């Protein structure tokens, strides 16, 4: 078996695509309502929110850093959007802009502290996770803010409407996916992102500025949290301080299942897309099949553990690949 064939067979994307198909068939066969278009669009909608934050997070993981405060940032931005519309009487578009700006600033702050003060991003963002969630609870006094139907704006249509049967969020996520994939594969920024995470020392020696790349990426993650927060408030017409609580786990799960390595330098947009579909399909499908809600978390966790444990064996230069190559040699002497 030659190199190209082995690397195709072991391509993370190929494997995951089969996992997606297998899950789909499994759920479709065991649940009468799984194939309903409503169910399918619900899965896509969950996938969409996972992707809008998950794609920039993939960038960050490629750069060798991580942001655990995404769920809290997302929640705070959602609350701030609602607060600006209801309490301050802002135009919803302006409120959304405020939320996006706030999210971006938080991302920039995370980036500056990680790069300039060399605070490990894991520790820093655990702190930010608690800090931002706390802020969201403090400014709302723990209560959700309803954006009642009397507020009329084109923003609500853009955030939560439908184009034909397709939810608007899906369109947003699709755009995010196309742009992210393109940037990773075809731009200078993409190349330097991989260099930064792949070998910081080498990047530095070759004149790449890894610090600047990381700050930009943190900022982008913050921006996406702001965007997701504004879209959520626009769609649900509610600003809840608990929005996105625990969401960071589902998003990080999607990114890791998608093949991005927390050690940096590896990851793709397509991988994260497939990872997000797997996670949201599990979340929806398991409930439809009749699995008790709390068990869903167990299964998602199991999948992360498996993905991480099997990864070293399935690498293109790992034991499994060598075994496959050996197989080829034996059948093809000379």
């Amino acid at each position, binding site marked *: 078996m030659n190199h190209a064939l082995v690397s195709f067979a072991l391509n993370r994307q190929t494997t995951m695509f089969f996992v997606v198909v297998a899950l789909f068939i499994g759920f479709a066969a065991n649940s009468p309502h799984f194939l309903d278009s409503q169910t399918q669009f619900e899965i896509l909608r969950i996938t969409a929110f996972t992707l809008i934050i998950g794609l920039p997070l993939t960038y960050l993981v490629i750069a060798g850093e991580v942001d655990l405060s995404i769920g809290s940032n997302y929640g705070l931005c959602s609350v701030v959007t609602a607060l600006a519309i209801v309490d301050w009487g802002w135009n919803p578009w302006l409120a959304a802009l405020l939320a996006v700006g706030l999210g971006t600033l938080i991302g920039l702050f995370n980036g500056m502290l990680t790069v300039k003060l060399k605070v490990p991003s894991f520790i820093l963002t655990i702190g930010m996770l608690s800090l931002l969630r706390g802020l969201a609870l403090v400014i709302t006094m723990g209560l959700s803010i309803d954006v009642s139907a009397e507020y009329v704006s084109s923003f609500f249509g853009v955030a939560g409407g439908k184009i034909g049967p397709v939810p608007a969020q899906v369109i947003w996520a699709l755009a995010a996916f196309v742009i992210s994939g393109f940037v990773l594969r075809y731009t200078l920024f993409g190349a330097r992102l991989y*260099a930064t995470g792949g070998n910081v020392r080498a990047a530095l020696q070759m*004149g790449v500025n890894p610090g600047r790349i990381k700050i930009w990426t943190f900022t982008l993650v913050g921006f996406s949290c702001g965007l997701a927060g504004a879209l959520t408030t626009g769609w649900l017409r509610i600003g809840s301080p608990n929005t996105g609580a625990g969401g960071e786990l589902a998003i990080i799960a999607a990114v890791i299942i998608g093949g991005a390595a927390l050690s940096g330098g590896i990851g793709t947009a397509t991988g994260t897309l497939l990872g997000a579909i797997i996670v949201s399909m599990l979340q929806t499908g398991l409930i439809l099949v009749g699995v008790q809600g709390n068990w869903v978390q167990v299964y998602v966790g199991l999948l992360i553990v498996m993905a991480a444990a099997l990864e070293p064996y399935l690498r293109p*230069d790992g034991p499994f690949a060598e075994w496959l190559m050996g197989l080829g040699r034996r059948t093809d002497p000379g």
Partner: protein
Amino acid sequence: MAYHDFREPDATGADMPMSTDAQPIVSVRNASRHFGRVTALSDVSMDLYPGQVTALLGDNGAGKSTFITMLSGVFPPSSGEIQMDGKPVHFASPHDARAAGIATVFQGLALIEDRSIADNLFLGCEPVRFGFLLDRKRMVREAKGVLEQLKVNLPPVTTSVRFLSGGQRQAVAVARTIVTGSKLVIMDEPTAALGVRETGKVLDLIRRLRDQGTSVLLISHNMDDVFSVADRAVVLRLGRKVADVAIRDVTREQIVGLVMGGERAPERDKQEAAA
């Protein structure tokens, strides 16, 4: 970002005769470097000529690393100066030195494991269109050209560096210096981790660089390597230059003696004679 098209030979091209009459590419003049109260380098002068392989020798702590780190732009000399083509230059960063034509092949090779050979060759000086789009076609085409020029056998340039052997990695790191059109290539222990056959290949690479008119500054502890490729040897001891000799004028034993500093008196005479 300085980008050099390798197919157009430089003015100091391949047919430059190897002679000391030529203008040195890089001259270091009376360079000293202090770290606090420690003097790592003391009043060292050195001329590096096109088409010449200079071996930089010395025991641990002799100042070799300080010398090449200074030349590659990480820090400036405390006193003295570096000249290129007769004009004094100041490097604020390794990037400056690289842009000026001084490329260093680091001991760690500075390669990204999971990126392709082509990506690694152009790391830090990627050809782009419209300022942000990678010109992948050009990267692949020129990567092939550079590797052909070096006559090295590598898998297709889209292969990840992860799959390459030690010698092949060294070849990629050396090829990178050609991509940026370097006039001086500094190699830090390029054969330290290699087997006999791969070492031979790397030495061939060094000869090919020399034949193309590049100046090579080679750091090595291996006398076999030094005597097989170097034209000249400069010996540092305790931060001072103690010898600067043509390889054909010395024996292995003399060089080892100079490096170890065992025979103090005779070698002082030699230095005076050389000066």
